[in-house]
């Protein structure tokens, strides 16, 4: 089929009545959950995952995807007006977004962020349209060693490019890999860490893990901490949203660079929109002619991360759909939808299910246009949502977590797992361990082990197989370089912070 045929097929699927409706539901709920602090994309998707049992797989994907990229639009609203990231990927937006709204320029920030998000999303969609089929074709020749190498690269990238300590991220990856081994072994059916509990034979449910680690732990941590401050309601008026010529002039560069940075980190397994947002913020700050304005309401610092996280949201579908390797936990949920309907993810997916793949891609355009409409003329609605105090919000969220989890398998054991991982996530927050790498490890762990064991069988235990094959060797060298770089960076960073501590001590002494 030619390229134009594929686009036409995709449009016909995406514009069907049901798919349009669920695309709207997805982006609407995405914006809603994005605005509310404490529920990120992942918790929102896990909450609505049970709904997808009742839908066609394509429709289910379109809706979940809408939630996924919709939260990025909504997350920026809370970040700018409240100084609270509505979702993790908007954390970088608070640095300059909140100062802007303190200066009465919140409306302009909201406007530019929405435009930036649309630009970033568009670049991401175009890249996905062009590259996914090519990558999938290329990947048809991949065997276990290549897949193993890609997964290793993803795991290392996830922990190497992080805001916190790389050692802690690595340790959380390993913990995630270990949690992923729980259940019956896939080749020998030997139980691993099930402690005789039958419910654990299939391992932990991804949704339970996600809701515990992100939903429940966030509630535990936030009660008593989050106080809703005054919200500048006038920021939501049209008249307050008109950017000056100066704002436009300063925003083109960040939008352009943010789109590419975001697309790159989105497409790389293990990294995603949050990392893309932080990196593009750092890049803008470094190349800016007036870095001292950053943190005090520089428009570049608002536009860049929001453009980047939306671009990353779209391109993260590339490894997921073209290789069947989920780059993040949210993408694993997407693949979960496919597998539930008996569709095998992998490079053959695009040719075997063209309607599904191209319909999904085309729905991204519809979704992004809907999001611009939802986020500019209807911004007042979301601002009102922000005024709901946290002490009313968190019991409601908790109730939805309980019922949502109960409905997945209709059993109470999953709820205890949610509670357990909620406690784990809370303790991790208190001791400053990052949760996202744990989830990435959990998602990629079974794949990693499967491909490693298969490679070892293939090579009769000779690990040279990973460097004798050109593709896997290239990827392995990249992983190694990334690992060395991250160790070097963290050593340099800790030395620098210790020196500055000593200097501070000297000054005080």
């Amino acid at each position, binding site marked *: 089929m030619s390229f134009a045929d594929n686009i036409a097929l995709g449009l016909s699927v995406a514009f069907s009545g049901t798919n349009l409706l669920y695309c709207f539901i997805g982006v609407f709920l995405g914006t809603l959950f994005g605005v509310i602090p404490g529920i990120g994309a992942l918790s929102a998707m896990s909450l609505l995952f049970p709904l997808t049992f*009742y839908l066609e797989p394509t429709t289910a994907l379109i809706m979940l995807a809408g939630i996924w990229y919709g939260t990025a639009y909504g997350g920026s609203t809370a970040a700018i007006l409240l100084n609270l990231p509505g979702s993790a990927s908007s954390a970088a937006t608070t640095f300059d977004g909140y100062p802007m709204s303190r200066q009465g320029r919140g409306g302009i920030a909201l406007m530019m962020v929405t435009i930036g998000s649309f630009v970033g999303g568009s670049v991401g969609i175009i890249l996905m349209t062009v590259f996914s089929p090519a990558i999938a074709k290329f990947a048809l020749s991949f065997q276990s060693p290549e897949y193993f190498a890609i997964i290793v690269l993803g795991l290392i990238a996830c922990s190497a490019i992080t805001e916190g300590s790389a050692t802690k991220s690595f340790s959380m990856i390993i913990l995630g890999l270990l949690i992923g*081994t729980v259940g019956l072994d896939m080749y020998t059916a030997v139980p691993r860490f099930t402690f005789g509990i039958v419910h654990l034979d299939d391992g932990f449910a991804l949704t339970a893990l996600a809701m515990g680690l992100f939903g429940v732990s966030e509630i535990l941590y936030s009660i008593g901490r989050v106080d809703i401050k005054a919200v500048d309601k006038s920021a939501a008026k049209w008249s307050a949203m008109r950017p000056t010529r100066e704002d436009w002039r300063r925003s083109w560069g960040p939008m352009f660079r943010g789109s590419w940075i975001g697309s790159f980190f989105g497409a790389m397994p293990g990294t995603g929109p949050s990392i893309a947002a932080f990196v593009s913020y750092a890049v803008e700050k470094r190349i800016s002619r007036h870095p001292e304005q950053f943190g005090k309401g520089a428009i570049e610092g608002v536009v860049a991360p929001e453009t980047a996280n939306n671009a990353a949201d779209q391109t993260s579908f590339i490894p997921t759909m073209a290789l069947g390797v989920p780059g993040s936990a949210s993408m694993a949920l997407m693949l979960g939808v496919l597998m539930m309907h008996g569709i095998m993810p992998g490079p053959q997916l695009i040719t075997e299910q063209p309607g599904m793949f191209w319909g999904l891609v085309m729905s991204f355009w519809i979704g992004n246009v809907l999001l611009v409409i939802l986020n500019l003329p209807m911004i007042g609605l979301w601002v009102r949502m922000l005024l709901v105090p946290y002490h009313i919000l968190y019991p409601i969220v908790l109730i939805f977590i309980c019922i949502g989890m109960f409905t997945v398998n209709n059993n109470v054991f999953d709820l205890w797992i949610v509670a357990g991982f909620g*406690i784990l996530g809370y303790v991790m927050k208190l001791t400053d361990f990052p949760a996202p790498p744990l989830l990435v490890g959990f998602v990629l762990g079974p794949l990693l082990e499967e491909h*490693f064991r298969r490679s070892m069988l293939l090579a009769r235990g000779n690990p040279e197989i990973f460097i004798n094959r050109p593709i896997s060797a290239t990827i392995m060298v990249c992983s190694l370089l990334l690992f060395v770089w991250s160790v070097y960076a963290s050593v340099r960073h800790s030395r620098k912070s210790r020196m500055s501590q000593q200097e501070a001590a000297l000054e005080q002494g």
Partner: protein
Amino acid sequence: MSLWTSRDFVGGGALIGLGLFVSAYSYQTMPLGTISRMGPGLMPFSLGWLLTGFGAIIAAGSIANRVQIEKFEWRNFLCVVGAIIVFSLVARPLGMAPAVACVLVLASLAELKMTKVQFLALLVALPTLCYLAFSVGLGVPLPLFKWPF
């Protein structure tokens, strides 16, 4: 500041303990196999050691650079985790409305900021909404009320 309340010492120490347990447990209960024919225990066994190693690095780093661990809020813990457990016990025998009410009551005990009017409004609105969304909308087999006797 004492090492025992240092954030990374506690965290790293926990990882060392966990890693050692995992390695020992997988060595005892699962066949390790050989590298060309890996058994189910090999991966957890090696990961356990890796985890121990990283835990040691993190704990060692805390000796020079101590950061006070954040306070564990017992009240939040009891209320939120308790709410989930109670929901899991109440939902099946008594139905959705009592379970939702239990979560609402327990969860709001963590932070007594809700006014009476807000509380009563939620008490009525939430079970109704959940019933409409999940039982009617999605066909989840969980009735609003159930009488077990």
